[in-house]
C-alpha cells in the first residue's frame, strides 16, 4: 500500500499505577502478564503502534484485559495516555500529536473527525432524550444548526439501521439492547466522520441481531468509505469485518497483518490457540 495512512499511532503506552523499581526498567521481566506483583501497577498498553488507512476496517482482537479497549479509549481521549503519539492525516491537524493538543481541540476532533460506538450504549447515548435527538446531538456538535436537515439525516440513518421511524421520538431507554446499539451506530455515523471506533459492538447481542449489526457495518464501509477500528474478543466477528488485524495480549501487539493471513497461518502461539478454538 502506497497510500498515506489516515491515522498513525506510535508507541502508545498506558499504565495504571506509578510503577516501581521492579517494573519500570525496560526489561520488565518481573511482570505477571501485564501486572507488577510488587506495586500493583497495570501496564494496559505497551508500546502499541499501528496505522489505519482510508476506508479500511482494522480489527483488534484479544482476550479481556489485553488492552484492546484501552487503546481505543485513549485514541478517543476518554482516557489519558501515559506516553505516545497519534497523528491524523487531515489539513487541520497535519503534523500535530493529537494527544498533546488542548482539550478544546480534542473536543473538536471528537466532534468533527471521530465517531464512537461503545460496548455499553449507556455511555454513548442519552437514554432519556429522543432517538432522533441523540443523533442530532452529534450533528449539532459538528456545527449543524438546521433542524429540518438534521431530522432528514437522522431519519435516513434510522432507516439504515432498521429503527422504525414512528419510534424516532422515543427515548432509547425504552429500546432493546440491539436497538440501542443500532441507534448508537446511527449517531456515530451522522456527521460522516473519517474515523469510526467500534468497541465490542456485537457483544451481548442475540445472534440474529449480531448478524444484522455486522451487515450494517459492512454496508457503511462500502457506501461511506469510513475508516474503522473494530475491537472485539470474538475472532469470528473480526474475520467477518476486518481487512487487517492486530492481535493483542497483555497490553502488547503480538501479531499483525492481513486478517486472512493471520487466520490461515497464525505465527504466535496465542493466536494459534485463538484460531483453533474458533474452528
Amino acid at each position, binding site marked *: 500500500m502506497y497510500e498515506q495512512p489516515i491515522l498513525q499511532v506510535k508507541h502508545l503506552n498506558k499504565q495504571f499505577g506509578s510503577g*516501581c523499581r521492579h517494573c519500570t526498567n525496560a526489561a520488565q521481566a518481573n511482570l505477571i502478564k501485564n501486572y*507488577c*506483583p*510488587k506495586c*500493583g501497577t497495570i501496564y494496559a498498553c505497551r508500546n502499541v503502534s499501528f496505522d489505519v488507512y482510508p476506508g479500511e476496517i482494522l480489527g483488534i482482537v484479544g482476550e479481556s484485559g489485553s488492552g484492546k479497549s484501552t487503546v481505543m479509549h485513549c485514541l478517543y481521549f476518554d482516557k489519558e495516555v501515559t506516553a505516545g503519539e497519534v497523528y491524523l492525516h487531515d489539513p487541520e491537524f497535519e503534523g500535530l500529536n493529537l494527544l498533546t493538543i488542548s482539550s478544546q481541540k480534542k473536543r473538536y476532533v471528537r466532534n468533527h473527525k471521530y465517531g464512537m460506538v461503545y460496548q455499553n450504549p449507556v455511555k454513548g447515548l442519552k437514554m432519556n432524550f429522543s432517538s432522533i435527538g441523540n443523533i442530532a446531538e452529534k450533528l449539532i456538535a459538528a456545527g449543524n444548526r438546521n433542524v*429540518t436537515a438534521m431530522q432528514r439525516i437522522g431519519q435516513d440513518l434510522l432507516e439504515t439501521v432498521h429503527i422504525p421511524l414512528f419510534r424516532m421520538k422515543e427515548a432509547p431507554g425504552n429500546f432493546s439492547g440491539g436497538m440501542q446499539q443500532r441507534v448508537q451506530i446511527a449517531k456515530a455515523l451522522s456527521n460522516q466522520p473519517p474515523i469510526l471506533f467500534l468497541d465490542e459492538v456485537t457483544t451481548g447481542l442475540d445472534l440474529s441481531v449480531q448478524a444484522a449489526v455486522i451487515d450494517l457495518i459492512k454496508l457503511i464501509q462500502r457506501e461511506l468509505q469510513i475508516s474503522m477500528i473494530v475491537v472485539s474478543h470474538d475472532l469470528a466477528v473480526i474475520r467477518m469485518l476486518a481487512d487487517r488485524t492486530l492481535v493483542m495480549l497483555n497490553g502488547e501487539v503480538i501479531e499483525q497483518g492481513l486478517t486472512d493471513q493471520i487466520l490461515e497461518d497464525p505465527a504466535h502461539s496465542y493466536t494459534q490457540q485463538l484460531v483453533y478454538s474458533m474452528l
Partner: protein
Amino acid sequence: MGYVAVKGGTNAIEASIERIKYERIKDMEVVSVETILSSMRLLVDQVMSEASLYSPYLAALAIKQAEGSMEEAVFLLRAHRSTLPRLYYSRTVDPYEMFVERRISASFKDIPGGQLLGATHDYTHRLLDFQLLSETKQDLENWLAQYSAEKLPRATRNEITHYPKVVEYLRAEGLFETYEADNTSPDDVTKYSLQFPASRSERLQILTRGQTGAITSLGYASLRGYGQVHPTVGEVRVGRLPIYVSLENSEMTDPEDDYYLGEIKVTEVESFVPVTKKKNTNEHEIEFEIGYGVCYGQNETKAIAMSILDQCLEHPEESFATHDEEFVLLHVDSVESTGFISHLKLPHYVTFQSKLDSVRRVKQGGTENES
C-alpha cells in the same frame, strides 16, 4: 384593580416593618441581651457557628432582634460580618491546648486522662420541668451557693492540665498514619469563591458554618445507608481555646510576642473510620482515617455529623450524594438556602407572562416552522 398588589411599595414596606416591630414588643416584655446571653447559651452557640462569627454578645442581640428565628439571627450576624474589615489571621490553634470542659470517647472504656462528662443533656430525662415555671432569683442563688461549696472544681488556671488526644494512643500503635504537619495556609472561602474540586480546608470551612439541621440530616443520611462511612466517635471534646495573633511583618517568630485576643469555645470531634488501603507493596490493609468535625460553641451533634461528611468528601469515588462535594457544600449554607427558597415570594409576573406565552403557543399546536 388587582395590579397594585406589588406596587405602592414604599408605604407597604414601612407599614410592614412597623408591624413586625409591633409583633416583637406588643406583650410589653423586654428581654435583655444579657438574659439571652446567660440563659440561652446553646442557641447563642448555634447562631455563632452558622454565622461563622464568634461574638456571643452580638449573637444574643441578633437573637433578640430576630425574635428567636435561627435563620434570621444567622443572617443578621453574617451581614454584619460583611461590613467588618478582616485584618489578621490568627495563629494556628492547637486543640491540644484546649481548656477541656467535657471530653468523651466512644472507642474506649477508659482513655488516658479519663472520660470527663462535663455539662451535657445526654443523660437528662426529657421531661418538661414545670418547676421552672416558678423559678426565682432566690432559688438560683441558693442552688448556686450549695453547688459551689460542694461540687465546683477548685482547679484554677495555674494548674491546667492538657488532655492528650485519643488518636495519639492509636497512632503509637501504627493504626493511624502519621502525617507531617501541613503548614500551607488554608484557602479562605470568605475571600475567594469556592472552586471545584475543593481543598479540604475549604470543605471544612463550609461544613463548620453549615446549617446545623442540614449538616445533621446529610450526616444522618450517610450513616443510614446513603453513604459509605462507618465511624466510631474517637473523641468529642468541648472546651475553650486561646486565640493569638502574630505581629505582621515581624522578623521575630517568638510566640511570646504574639497578641492574645481571647478564647473561643468549640466542640471538636475526631471520628475513626476504617478504610481499606493499598500499600506500596500491593497488599491491602485496613487503616483508620479521621473524620474531623469542629464548630463554635457546644454543638456536638453538628460536629459529629460534620466529621462524617468530612470523611465522605475525602472519598468522592463513592457514588452517593453525601460523597459528592458539590451536592453537600453547595446546599448546607443557611443564608444561601433560606434566601433562595424565600426569594420565591418575590413577584415573578414577567417570567410567568413569558411562560404563559410559551404554553399558549405550544397549545395552539401545528408543527409549521415559525417564521
